């Protein structure tokens, strides 16, 4: 039997079921909540990672406003810009790695095969993991946001809450597609530490976390335009910092939707292929 034809059979999937997705997500959240110290840890320590950027800004601009910053970012308030960008970056990262980490966790604890042998769609397994991750990350991100607002006393306004949620959801959806491919990579390479660190660091430089992409060198700017988070972060800042309404970011919404469609197709196929590879090499249970 030829390999290509057999991949076709692995590709055949169960019908996804919302109930199963929820069951998988709820199980993971329940287990996460049984390590309350971890959640607190991941809420508070990353605040320390944001601090250096803020202190650097203070040391260079002499205050929380910068006229030079306004000329590139549209707002002189670099502090709000950085805080918003940093918290969203962590959100993006958890979307990218959530599925892979969850699968890896199942593999390490020995339960992955129990999942794979049950008649469940791989969409359910992946989205269940992603949903659980989103719940815990929303929790930690909210804590971070509140703590930072309290420390620096920035009055964030959410005049248009609906477009904010729409953009955030679209961004997560787009990244879930990418995350499926990453989950596949985790399945095959087990502990791709170098890869994850590399991508994390690279994304941090390329997407507008602390500065608009117009400050990037030309080649880096092109790369940045290929990442959905670039559009999502720009759109979210437009809403919150520049008080734009939903019509001003309509183009971003369309671009993100196209990304989502493309990345889901790509991610799903990549994960199915990774599953096929591990089923051939017998690596589902090993770690």
């Amino acid at each position, binding site marked *: 039997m030829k390999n290509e034809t057999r991949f076709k059979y692995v590709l055949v999937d169960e019908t996804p079921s919302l109930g199963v997705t929820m069951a998988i997500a709820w199980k993971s959240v329940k287990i996460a909540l049984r390590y309350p110290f971890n959640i607190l840890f991941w809420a508070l320590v990353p605040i320390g990672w944001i601090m250096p950027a803020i202190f650097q800004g*203070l040391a260079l601009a002499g205050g929380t406003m910068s006229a030079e910053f306004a000329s590139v970012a549209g707002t002189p308030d670099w502090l709000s810009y950085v805080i918003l960008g940093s918290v969203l970056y962590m959100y993006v990262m958890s979307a990218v790695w959530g599925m892979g980490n969850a699968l890896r966790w199942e593999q390490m604890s020995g339960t992955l095969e129990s999942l794979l042998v049950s008649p469940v769609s791989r969409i359910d397994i992946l989205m269940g993991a992603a949903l659980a991750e989103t719940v815990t990350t929303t929790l930690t991100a909210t804590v971070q946001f509140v703590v930072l607002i309290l420390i620096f006393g920035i009055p964030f306004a959410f005049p248009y809450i609906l477009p904010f949620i729409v953009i955030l959801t679209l961004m997560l959806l787009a990244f879930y597609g990418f995350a499926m491919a990453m989950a596949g990579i985790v399945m095959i390479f087990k502990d791709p530490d170098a890869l994850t660190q590399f991508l994390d660091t690279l994304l*941090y430089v390329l997407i507008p976390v602390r500065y608009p992409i117009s400050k990037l060198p030309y080649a880096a700017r092109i790369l940045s335009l290929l990442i959905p988070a670039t559009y999502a972060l720009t759109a979210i800042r437009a809403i919150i910092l520049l008080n734009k309404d939903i019509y001003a970011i309509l183009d971003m919404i369309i671009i993100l939707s196209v990304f989502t469609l493309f990345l889901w197709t790509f991610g799903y196929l990549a994960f199915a292929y990774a599953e096929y590879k591990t089923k051939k090499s017998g690596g589902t249970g090993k770690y």
Partner: protein
Amino acid sequence: MALKTKINNLLKEVKAAWAICIKVWKDELSYPLSVLYFILAPILWLAPFIIFGFAIAGGRYSPVLEKMTGIGDIVTYTSLGFAFLGFASAALWGTGLSLRREQWIGTLESVLVSPVSRFTIIFGQGLHSITHTGSGLVLQLVVMIVVFGIHLNLWGIFPSLIAVALTILAIQGIGFMICSIVLAVKQGWMIIDVVDTVFWVVTSTAYPITILPAFLQVVARVSPITYGVESFRGFLLYGPWQPWIWQNIVILAVLDIIYLTLGYLIYLKSEERVKKKGTVHKF
């Protein structure tokens, strides 16, 4: 005679540590991606700080920074600070993490009973971290000199290595303290993350410590890395003949003695406790 055996034993330890260092290097270099990451990482870490600096100051010069530190060039100030912190942080991780890694793989217990002393193992891993980030540091500086044309005082290179060496010694002391906690407490690895983050915040890499809130300034003043980075930057920019730099070096040497003694004592204590309770494997 006794001295000769002692020296022989020491040589054996050093050889064993070196072998461990080489082994970790080989593991690391056996993956193309990790080679690529090794080369690019120092630059990728630095990039956001440089670009953000440009965005906020409208160029590489900041009058505010010059008023506070005497150095107005963001690129010079930040890249030297970063190179040093990256190095110091790796030394900390090399020590703290070596035990964590063993624990993770589940071999900690066998390591603790093996004939190779754990200090050898810790130093071996530390040696790897130092050679690893040492070459990263050189790479980073070369890129900075070529791309941004920063000017270094060549006479300062040798004394700057003194700053590096003294800082590493103090960090080993802190590393031993962390190891003690990792050994004694469940999920002790979190401590490493916390300590690393604190250093990351209070070290004057991209900004002077005077910008920090008062309580963080206190932390910065007992951190050896603070004096290390100031003298490192000072030597490389102003050469070896500035008295204020040597003042920093003296403080660093005093901190060395304090941290090494403290670290060693605490480590011995906790190891004894752990062995008595036999809880090493329960992680």
